[in-house]
């Protein structure tokens, strides 16, 4: 069981980081295009990575 859990943690963490960046980064990117304020992309990416790290902590750090 232990080996499975390790691989699960490894790829889940990777997946969360990618999807956090993709989703909120994407939202930020389109917001930046729409409002013509380029820094919104950066804010989106930061929000995404924050959310992803928070999720990882919720899932693996709490136990």
């Amino acid at each position, binding site marked *: *069981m232990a*080996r*499975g859990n390790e*691989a*699960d943690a490894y*790829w*889940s963490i*990777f*997946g*969360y980081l*990618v*999807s*956090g960046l*993709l*989703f*909120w980064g994407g939202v930020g990117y389109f917001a930046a295009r729409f409002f013509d304020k380029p820094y919104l992309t950066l804010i989106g990416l930061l*929000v*995404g990575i*924050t*959310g*992803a790290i*928070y*999720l990882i902590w*919720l*899932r693996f750090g*709490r136990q």
Partner: protein
Amino acid sequence: MINLHFSGEGFVPPSTNDFNLPPIFENIAWLTKPVLLVFLSVILVSLFFVISARKAAVVPSKLQFAGESIYAFVRNDLARDVIGHDFMRFVPYLFTLFTFVLTNNIFGIVPFLQFPAMSHVGFPYVLALFSFFVFHYVGIRKQGLGKYLKDIAFMPGVPKAVYILLTPIEIATFFLVRPLTLSLRLFANMFAGHLLLLVFIMGGEYMLHDSHLIMKIFAPFSFTFGIALTFFEFMVQCLQAYIFTLLTALYIAGALADEH
């Protein structure tokens, strides 16, 4: 004879064009080498396991032992250890997946075949799609559509406002990133490995045919590296087949679990 396609125009490094193989027969556009190799792998895998299991005996022959070892590996180390209770339902799928991917990967270093079909991204996409449907289907069957989606989207023990931030990430992870990383990991490993072998072996050939003596002297090093990398590739090919199956098993286990 030697300088057939090296007419002094410099080394042409291998590129993605080396992966676009022409159809074998001119008028059948879909029948390319990767397609043929996939068919061949299906035939080989089926034959091997039918023959190894046909004369099953208490004292196994070498062939039976080999077949049973692979089966036992998938059943015990992948299915039972990861999925746990009620794992036998998934052994046929995982076993097929593992042997199919493994055979196709190893075709990458078998002389004359020498092409991993999984370096064409379409094949891993389809396999990942199968796994995607399997693990969502068993999750929905086990827990019901509403509860399954709620478990995915809402991590328990979080203030309600935070869900605006977290739910999109969870949904993107389960429905987009998981199948995508599953297929792209396999594809990228096979693609890069094949390209690496092409670089060293074609590079060695080019150096051997070069007019400078120094190039000729260093050509064997390139070949040696190519051979060493072939062994390395063998390891990567086995590992990628293993990881693909392991992650599928993990996703199934996650979908069956009551909460993640």
